[in-house]
């Protein structure tokens, strides 16, 4: 992005396509009108961290209002259908009315433009003082060395195609914004390819930071079902990708044992693996049910 060119455009009042889009949004959501000016202005001077953080949060209230509106819309036809056979009309319509009014009042509140801005500012309450230290103690001592050059994000193949920004993960971890780091779905877009770490001028163990952050995310329950399934396969068979009938046939054909000489062939070895999982608590972390051998 050419900062100078952008600055010139802003000074001369020339609108950028990006800005136009934003003012369109602003028409829908009058609340964000003044705010769009702010991040733009900041972006000129100091490109990324701040405006992005603001942008992310900016979206939140929008999403909320949409969510609140939806149930009202979907409930309505149901209530109408229910009208005919049943006589509970007044109760149902009341239920429908209530959530419908809520977003309205919220919207008119936000007309004051300044209200709710406190919620978008990062304050002490968003900071988990221990998080940075926890990440460092868990093995990523190099975390604090980051000076936010952005080489990591520039090298990141996931950053090229998803909202994942590894530099932000590092910065937010240093700041102790634990909840923001671990609740962000894009944390799981890292393929652990180490391109960021190889290029980091400070030699920071970035992939370790990502993995440790994911450990905290997992403890907080942010785990994908498919991942838990892989975990359950290892608990159950010792393999993340267990043998199947077709491969057994192939193995036999080429003169390998039908089952490989792994936990597949040695049940006592599988018991060792299971004892380890019980000891570390991995089974309860993923909600493994030993009786049904499935994820709860």
């Amino acid at each position, binding site marked *: 992005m050419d900062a100078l060119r952008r600055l010139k455009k802003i000074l001369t009042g020339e609108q950028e396509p990006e800005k136009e889009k934003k003012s369109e949004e602003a028409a829908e959501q009058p609340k964000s009108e003044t705010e769009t000016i702010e991040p733009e202005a900041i972006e000129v001077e100091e490109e990324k961290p701040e405006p992005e953080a603001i942008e992310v949060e900016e979206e939140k209230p929008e999403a909320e209002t949409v969510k609140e509106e939806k149930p009202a819309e979907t409930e309505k036809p149901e209530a109408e259908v229910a009208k005919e056979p049943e006589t509970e009309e007044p109760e149902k319509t009341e239920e429908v009315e209530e959530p419908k009014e809520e977003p309205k009042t919220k919207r008119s509140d936000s007309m004051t433009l300044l209200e709710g801005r406190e919620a978008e500012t990062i304050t002490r309450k968003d900071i988990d003082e221990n998080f940075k230290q926890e990440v460092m103690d868990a093995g990523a001592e190099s975390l604090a060395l980051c000076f936010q050059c952005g080489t990591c994000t520039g090298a990141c193949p996931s950053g090229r195609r998803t909202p994942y920004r590894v530099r932000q993960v590092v910065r937010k971890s240093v700041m102790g914004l634990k909840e923001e780091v671990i609740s962000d779905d894009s944390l799981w877009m890292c393929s652990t390819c180490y*391109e960021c770490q190889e290029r980091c001028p400070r030699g920071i163990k970035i992939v370790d930071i990502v993995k440790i952050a994911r450990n905290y995310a997992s403890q907080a329950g942010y785990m994908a079902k498919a991942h838990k399934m892989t975990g359950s396969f290892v608990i159950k068979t010792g393999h993340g*990708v267990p043998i199947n009938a077709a491969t057994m046939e192939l193995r036999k054909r*080429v003169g390998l044992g039908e089952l490989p000489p*792994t936990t597949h062939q040695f049940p006592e070895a599988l018991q060792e*693996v299971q004892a*380890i999982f019980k*000891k570390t608590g*991995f089974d309860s972390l993923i909600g493994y049910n030993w009786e049904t051998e499935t994820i709860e």
Partner: protein
Amino acid sequence: MAFAYFLGCIMNNRYPGIEKASRVMMEKLGIELQDMEGASCCPAPGVFGSFDRTSHAAIAARNITIAEDMGADVMTECNGCFGSLFETNHMLKEDEEMKAKINDVLSEAGREFKGEINVRHFAEILYNDVGLDKLSEAVTKPLNLNVAVHYGCHFLKPSAEIEIDNALKPTILDELVEATGAKSVPYRDKLMCCGAGGGLRSRDIDVTLDYTKEKLDNMTDAGVDAIVNVCPFCHLQFDVGQTEVNKKHGTDYSIPVFHLAQLYGLAMGLSADDLTVDAHQICVDSALEKCAEIEEMDQITGGE
């Protein structure tokens, strides 16, 4: 020379031709592969490393103790397994506190990590212990293939710990591939990830396929006959993933995929049957036919 042969999951449980080729090839090269009886998943670094590093290290350490009991270094042919086992072995050798913690867990299974062995990757053993000269001599059917070499991620990185080759400008696999007579063709963003790792494939297949498609585009632009990898998970991603990319994007990629062990199997005269290439989703016949052309020429010219 003998190694504790760590199988892992995808090779032995999906592409047994890689295992078969490795066993035959290593025997020909005079390297003994000893089975690690009762070994498990490495465990999968994407899921286990992300969910709980202690569980990950404990299961990996258990696998390492099996090799310690055998008194042999581990050989693995999977970048993921190599990453899991190497990282854990390295960490527990350096970090006494973590070692004590993991040994406390391992005592549940009656095991103890001692830190007596090394974890080695198949390709690095070929390069450093066998050597290109001996490998070239073992080739009986030189391959006239143009190959897209795919390094994968956890073979060389993190390079500060692994120290096999320059991770940003490596040559080790290209040299190994060219010892078979094949040609390693340069292509754009050659060192890029296949997209499967880090748990991404099961978390968000669309993102994974976007990676894979970019690699396939670049390989296609370079005009290659085959993809060669050193990781069964990358292997699966290029094989199964290629069909998934075709389905999603309406493309018709059909680049045959070989693990380095299968490539050497071919060059050492193993049949396609033994390499179980029929288990591949992407047909490899085009590559096999191209290799057969050179044989026909040899018969006509007497090899001159």
